[in-house]
């Protein structure tokens, strides 16, 4: 699981950089944000 977390963490960094430059996010960014939020949620032990 750690490899996908690392990959996603990298992608989230890139998303933040994009946002700092006011570049609109695309569908692929939202897919990464969705997957990342699911992983974070299971880390926190909550599904709410």
């Amino acid at each position, binding site marked *: *699981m750690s*490899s*996908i977390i690392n*990959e*996603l963490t990298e*992608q*989230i960094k890139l*998303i*933040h950089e994009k*946002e700092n430059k006011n570049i609109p*996010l695309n*569908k*692929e960014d*939202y*897919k*990464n*944000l*969705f*997957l990342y*939020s*699911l*992983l*974070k*949620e299971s880390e926190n032990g*909550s*599904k*709410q």
Partner: protein
Amino acid sequence: MDQSNKTHITLIQLGRIGDLLQTLQSISSPIDLNINFTLICRKSFGKPLSHLLEKHFKHIHYIDTDALFTGNPSLSLSTDRLNNIINEINQQSHDALINLTFSKPAAFLMSLLDSEVKIGQVFQGSQNFEINDSWGQYVYSNIMTGPHSTFNLVDIMRKMIGLPFSLKQEREKKSSSSDSKKIVINPFASHSKKFWKASKWAKLINLLSQNPQFQLILVGADSEKELAAQILNLLTPECKKSMENLVGHTTIEQLGHTLKDADLFIGHDSMTSHLAAIYQTQTLTISLGTVRATETIPYGHHHYTLVPHISCFPCFPSDPCSNFECHDQIPEELASNIADLIVNNKNIEEFESDKSTHDLWNTCSLYRSEVTDLSLRTRRVTSLPMTSQEIINDFYHHCWLFIFSDQEGQLDFPHLNSSLCIELEKHLEGFEYLFDISGFGKQFSNTIVNEAKQKKPNNKVITEQSEKLKELEGLTQSIKKQYPILTPLINFTTLELRLNNGQDLYELAQNSLLSYHQLNLSISIIHDFISKSIQNFENQNKAHLAK
């Protein structure tokens, strides 16, 4: 292509089984609504309920969130799996997509799905989100931030979907004979903050078992067998012998049948309490920890819940707590007495006003759900007058219904006394301050609107007025500290101003003008309710003296 001309509404509910049951209740209707409902839920929570969900939803997309990450996949493999899910959902047409979950995954999923109309929270970036509907904004500003809401969550979901209120006061008659009453007990919940420890439950069950009329059935999931054993070890031999233990022995479908057959359910805020409500069985729940009784009491007429008085209740899931002080606020003896009163249809107000029971009520109150003309209300069961906070909560409830849904419900004058009048007058002061602020907000926003319309807008005027608007926001937060009674209105307006998504200065100022106008109108409504109630009390006093 669907030729039926039905509207296609898709609901996203990524919460747990209890949330899914509430979602199911939110679309129940005695008449054909001419709507095809689709549900998007998690497979792990949706599948055990498929026997109920599939009766009401035309399509169900069970998302297996765990399978997205099965087998230590690479990001590209997980993305491929996610693409399959999204493509499958997007193949269907969604006239409206409604997010009922208010969690990050659900709000990001909203951004990935196609629909002209999106209601509820939708992320626009990694931190910024939109909520375009008033009820969704109400949830975010008043439910996510604390116990400020007077609405049951099922009613809020119905309003987000746009469905009318349709609950009835009737309840299906139970088949059991009058000398035997089946009570189903589920002593567990999703978080340790929300359920009593074994010793408290054992004491209550031992008390209940002393009533020869009661036939007790213990229920729970397979994973709760160990907790059940802790309770069973503390029961008297007679109690253990007479009680039926079904913990770990029922599917949710079988549990439903057991509940349907029962006269009363006793437990906490859990999936089972909502399932009992679906099967028209009365409930008595013990609200603890994070539970907001008004919002989550099982949906239906005359459900009961005991609520602790302690100031830290209700808390948030993230609040640290080691001693669970609220758990000790509710006496087992009181719960046992109330169970007897409910199943035998006895007057609970009389019991509450009986001096011999006063000690039992020192640290908790009993609340009851009541079907009114426009919504389900949850009110304290008491023979005493309402508190000023409860009176104003009632006013807020009617104000929101009018502002968001243009609905006017029946509202009687509250029973007041002199000290309540003084308290209400003090609250009135706060509403008057906020009224002045909203008036300034309207004025400053309007000046910017007028300036922005000019061919050559005066930037100095716009900057000055914008700074004044910022100052108003700061002032509003100070007033909230001084008059906490204003919190619901201030929280709502602050969020609405923050979510202002105007495309240019003119639109931004116009939206701000509308927000302050709505605040102004809301205050006028509540101010009017309070003033007229005080006036009515004074008139009654005058009439009484004239006699």
